Structures are given as structure tokens and as C-alpha cells.
């Protein structure tokens, strides 16, 4: 039924558009792209506003890749060690911020030990934001140095991974705040990241998931397990690594939203703060904008065919 209505509406729209294009071919042929910009702005702004006001979100259904990420983390037990590598910056916070939030929330509710690390200079700020936003207010019982810690940023890109995969203390003598590593209780016995039970990477590009796979997972397939969340651009590149090197992957805001719904449905309870629903909220503008994109593609083709027909006639 839903299909029929949608198909009907689309067909109606297309017919109308075809007539419009025929009537005003010149206008559509040289369509000022600013009209498209305006449509896009409206398509995103209106749902952002409406959802921001009503706080209603679309239902989400988790697909296998997000489910796999969730399952891998679910398999861990209280006290297991997780390395959270935040390799992104404010530019891609729209996509990756919700993932980072949900990862931290999931790990914190499961009482995993969290080790934050960043290969991007600004990643360090993302870690601090995350701690200030999630752990400090909502998990006040967690103690820095015992339940979570911040290794901070180290320059050197994949070189850093290459070293810490066998010897973490060679590069990290202090944590992000200048405390001697040896004085931090949860660093006891951690000589390399092979001691981690899982690596979670949130990545916006280089260095990121690909480098973690190449330099950490590939050489130590039995000792290092990893799941990742990445931007839409990167996702297709990482598919060849699934499932051997990468059991699960959250791709862009959609993946974030699926994972978020899994975590919140299981642990969130009824009265969950809006900050944990960010990805699902963002799927609203996403839906409208995607539909707009599809209609634009249709429209472009109608213009193309009408034009071609006209040219053939003349």
C-alpha cells in the first residue's frame, strides 16, 4: 500500500514536472543552480526545526554491519579494556559526533575500561568534549585513571600505531594531562595495545580506520579486534576489510543512527536525554534531503529527455 501511494505520488510529480519542463524548457535547461541550493536548504532546515521542536524521530532498523558492532561490544565483560581512538575534527562532527557519544555511553554503561587516544591534533579536543559531555555528568562514579583515561594526541600518524602496537610506553610517557603513565592504575600491565580487548575507532579520514586496520589489525589478527565508525565517504573503501579485519562498521549517520537505536533501546530507559538521540534526530533531514536528491535526479533526466526530443525534432 505504502508503495502504491508513493509510486502514485512520484508518478504524479513526474508528469507535472514533464509538463512544466515542456512549457518552460529554456528556464529549466539553464536552471540557475541557486534554486537547487535553496531547495536543499529548505529540505534540511525544515526537518531540523520540526524535529528539534517535537523531538520525534523515525523508527530505525539495524542492518547487519551496525548490529555486528553492537554485538562485538556486547560480548565484552565488565572491566574489559577498550581503546577508543577518536580521529576526527569538528568538520565531521555532524556524522561522527553521535557515534563517539554512543560508543562512550555504551562502554560506560557496560563498565568497560576506556582508554582514549587521538591521532588527529583536534581529536584530543573531541575526547575532552566527550568526557565532559557524557562521562562526567552521567557517570560520576567513574574515576579518572581507574575507569577511563585520556592518552591524548601524538603526532606521527600511522607511525604511532606502528609503535604502540608492540610498545606503548616508548611513545607515551605521560597521559594527556601530563601525569606520569606509571602513576595511572589502569595502565598497569598495559605494555602494548595488544592488551586491549577491543579497539573502537571513530575516523574521518587519514590517519584513520584504514591505517588502524593496516598497522594494528593486519599484523596481529589474533590479538587485536577492532570495530569502527566512519564517514560516508570512507565507508565504501573499508568494505573490502569486512569481516576479516573489521567485524563491524558504522557507516555515516545512518550507521550511527542504527547503532544508537540498538544501544538506547537496550540501555537507555524511557527518560533518555536528547543528547543520546542525536543520530536518530539527524535522520529526519537526511530522509527529506535524500528524497530531494532522488527527485532532482529524476528532474534532471526529464529535462535531458525533453531537450533531446526537441533537438531531434528540429
Amino acid at each position: 500500500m505504502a508503495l502504491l501511494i508513493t509510486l502514485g505520488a512520484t508518478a504524479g510529480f513526474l508528469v507535472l514536472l514533464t509538463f512544466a519542463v515542456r512549457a518552460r524548457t529554456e528556464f529549466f535547461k539553464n536552471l540557475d543552480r541557486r534554486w537547487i541550493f535553496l531547495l536543499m536548504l529548505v529540505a534540511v532546515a525544515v526537518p531540523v526545526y520540526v524535529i528539534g521542536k517535537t523531538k520525534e524521530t523515525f523508527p530505525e532498523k539495524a542492518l547487519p554491519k551496525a548490529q555486528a558492532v553492537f554485538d562485538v561490544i556486547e560480548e565484552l565483560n565488565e572491566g574489559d579494556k577498550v581503546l577508543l581512538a577518536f580521529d576526527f575534527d569538528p568538520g565531521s562532527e555532524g556524522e561522527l559526533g553521535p557515534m563517539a557519544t554512543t560508543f562512550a555511553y555504551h562502554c560506560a554503561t557496560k563498565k568497560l575500561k576506556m582508554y582514549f587516544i587521538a591521532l588527529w591534533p583536534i581529536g584530543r579536543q573531541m575526547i575532552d568534549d566527550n568526557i565532559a559531555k557524557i562521562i562526567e555528568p552521567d557517570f560520576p562514579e567513574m574515576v579518572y585513571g581507574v575507569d577511563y583515561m585520556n592518552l591524548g594526541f601524538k603526532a606521527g600518524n600511522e607511525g604511532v600505531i606502528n609503535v604502540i602496537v608492540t610498545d606503548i610506553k616508548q611513545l607515551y610517557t605521560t597521559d594527556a594531562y601530563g601525569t606520569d603513565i606509571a602513576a595511572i592504575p589502569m595502565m598497569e600491565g598495559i605494555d602494548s595495545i595488544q592488551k586491549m580487548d577491543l579497539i573502537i575507532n571513530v575516523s574521518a579520514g587519514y590517519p584513520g580506520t584504514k591505517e588502524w586496520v593496516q598497522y594494528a589489525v593486519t599484523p596481529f589478527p589474533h590479538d587485536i579486534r577492532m570495530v569502527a565508525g566512519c564517514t560516508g565517504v570512507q565507508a565504501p573503501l573499508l568494505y573490502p576489510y569486512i569481516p576479516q579485519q573489521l567485524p563491524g562498521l558504522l557507516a555515516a549517520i545512518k550507521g550511527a543512527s542504527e547503532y544508537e537505536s540498538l544501544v538506547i533501546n537496550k540501555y537507555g530507559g524511557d527518560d533518555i536525554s536528547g543528547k543520546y538521540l542525536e543520530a536518530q534526530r539527524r535522520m529526519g533531514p537526511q530522509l527529506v534531503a535524500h528524497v530531494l536528491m532522488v527527485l532532482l535526479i529524476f528532474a534532471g533526466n526529464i529535462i535531458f529527455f525533453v531537450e533531446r526530443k526537441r533537438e531531434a525534432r528540429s
Partner: protein
Amino acid sequence: MKRNVPLLLAIIAGFVMIVAFFIPYTVSWGEDVSIWFDILASIAFILGGGNLLKVHLKKVSDQAKGWGYSIITIVAFLVMLFVGLTKLGVNPNPQFPGHGHWAGQYNEVGSPFYWLFESVFKPLQATIFAMLAFYVASAAFRAFRAKNMEAILLLATAFFILLGRTAAGVFLTDFIPEESGYSGLRLENITVFIMDVFNTAGHRAIMIGVALGTASVSLKILLGVDRSYLGSGEG
């Protein structure tokens, strides 16, 4: 001296790195050199920053078109540099309070550097990035026209994935039961199939090709066949 020494340096360094990979004792050399490179790139900021100042100062002194904007660039550059390098307004490190502000974090919350980052750098970076939302729309409108088989495949794939990755995809093909043998035809599952199979195939081939291309370009440089990076040999 001007061309042969550097060429020799490149050749030796390159082949040493290749051989080192197979010898356990030397396998970490590559990491050391990577760190050195990052240091060199940091030192090179003096060249870049100097060039930036030179270009804009020249514009200002020539009163070239738009020289007023060059003043903004110069002032912004110098202010940010000063605030950051002097750690202006940064609190001491609570671990070492006696050390003064030099031991603090250069981007501490509340410091002027942080303020500039939050209210200028961050919104500008994120907004320029966000402009892509508009550009993808206009590119799709213009370029995705069914001119030939290639274009049809491009646009059809984009079409399926765009729909399949939102609630619309689930909604549209909801009538196909999930447990039935046809569940593969549900839009979200078509998306997954395209990604897993066609996309993987394409990317795998591209990756293999890129690896070969990289190896070949590297070899050409290491054999001295391609020397365009070395310049002319003139001073």
C-alpha cells in the same frame, strides 16, 4: 652537487628502506624517518608562513585589488600565532602549579586561543565542509543524466543507495516479508548487496591498481628515471 648528490641520496635512502623491511633488526627505521619528516614539515612552516606574509604584504603595499582583505589575513595570522605561541591566558598545569602558564595546555578551555578556535576556526571549517551538501545536489542534478550505459549505472546505483539508506527504503519495500526467500529484494538488502559485491569488486581493483602504480612511480624515482622533483640543477 646540485643534482647528482640529491639523486644519490634519494636512491640510497629508498633502497635501504625496502631492504630494511625484510630484516628484523632494521624494521623500525621507517618509523624514525617518519618522525623526522614530521619535524621537517614543522620546520618548513617557517617557509610557508613567511611566504603567506610575503604574498599578502606585497598585496597591501601594491594596493592590489582586494588589499584590504589581505590586511585581515595578516592580522588574523599574527594574532593567532602570538596567542598560541605565548600560551596567552593559559592556566598552569594543575599537576605542576609552580611551573607557571608555560606548562599549561595551549588550547585550554577558556583561553584566547580556545576562544578563537571555537568562534572562528570551528564554525568556518564546519560551514565550508557543509557547503558540500549543496554541491552534491547540484552535481547530481547536472551530471546524473542517462546519456549512456555508464551514466545509467552510475545514477541507478546512486538512486538505490540513496533510498535504501533512509527510512524511506525500509518503508517502500515493507511489503516483502523479511523471512521469505525474496527478502533480498528489500531495498535495504539490495543496498547491502551492491555494497558488498559490486562496490567491493570495484574498489578491490582500484586498490590493486593503485598499489601497482605507487610501486611503479616509486621505482621510477629510485631508478632516477623520473627526476622532475629535483628541479633544473640551477641554483
